[in-house]
């Protein structure tokens, strides 16, 4: 596909979108994994909330 004389700007815009959205998705997923692991470790050591008892 010929994107014309300004192709580099179009490609750069889509690359920026992929990087920013990709980083956001990875950050949210990594945050979830770290939190779930930390909660599992604490619960394995016997920590429980009153509502869980």
């Amino acid at each position, binding site marked *: *596909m*010929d*994107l*014309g*004389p*300004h*192709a580099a*700007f*179009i490609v*750069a*815009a*889509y690359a*920026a*979108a992929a990087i*920013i*959205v990709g*980083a*956001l*998705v990875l*950050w*949210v*997923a990594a*945050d*979830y994994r770290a*939190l*779930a692991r*930390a*909660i599992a470790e*604490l*619960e394995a*050591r*016997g*920590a*429980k*909330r009153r509502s869980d008892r």
Partner: protein
Amino acid sequence: MPFYELANPHRFLQLARVLIPALAVLALALIGLGLGLGFRAPPDYQQGEMVRVMYIHVPSAWIALFAYTLMAVASLGTLVWRHPLADVAAKAAAPIGAAFCLLCLVTGALWGRPMWGAYWVWDPRLTSVLVLFLLYLGVIAVWGAIDDPGRAGKAAAILTLVGFINVPIVKFSVDWWSSLHQGASVFRLDGPTIHPSLLTPLLISAAGFAALFFALQLAAMRNEILRRRLRTLGILAAATAEAG
């Protein structure tokens, strides 16, 4: 499920477990379809192929404005109704809105250089979007600066509501002041001024961005609920160790 039942974090987590993957799949399908149709549409009669940037720039701008509006509504929920999930929603939306706002600024700069001859001008629309981005960073900084989630939530809610004045300024800046940025061409009283061959892919792409935003928002809210659960467990574990 009645709306008020979502105030229960346990029920919210159950619902989020189902909705996050469904919204992610919907987002991928809609964005793929929107961009696919967008690249097959004819080039714009004035901007040529550069119009392809519209399919990511405009949805990013809409999501950036919508996320801040959601934060403002959630902030009212924190300050007025004290809804248990309100500050969770507000905190979760801030980095997501900031990312879409950054994407809007970056793609706008890359669109502006070949069309206007400059990456940046201190134009009312561009400047007010930059202010929106700085407001996002400010709200994120407030959340990071105060340890207690209750106090942080109230401080961030006040800043968010004060900053909400900027949202209509962004929207109407092109009408109120002389602007290099083009005026509204989709949400107009007399209807869209974009040809349907370009408008349809734009709306499909925007629907995909909206689905992506809601998937990320639910995932980030789930993370925030888990972060608070972890904090409570840590305090209880420390108290138990001290008592023992």
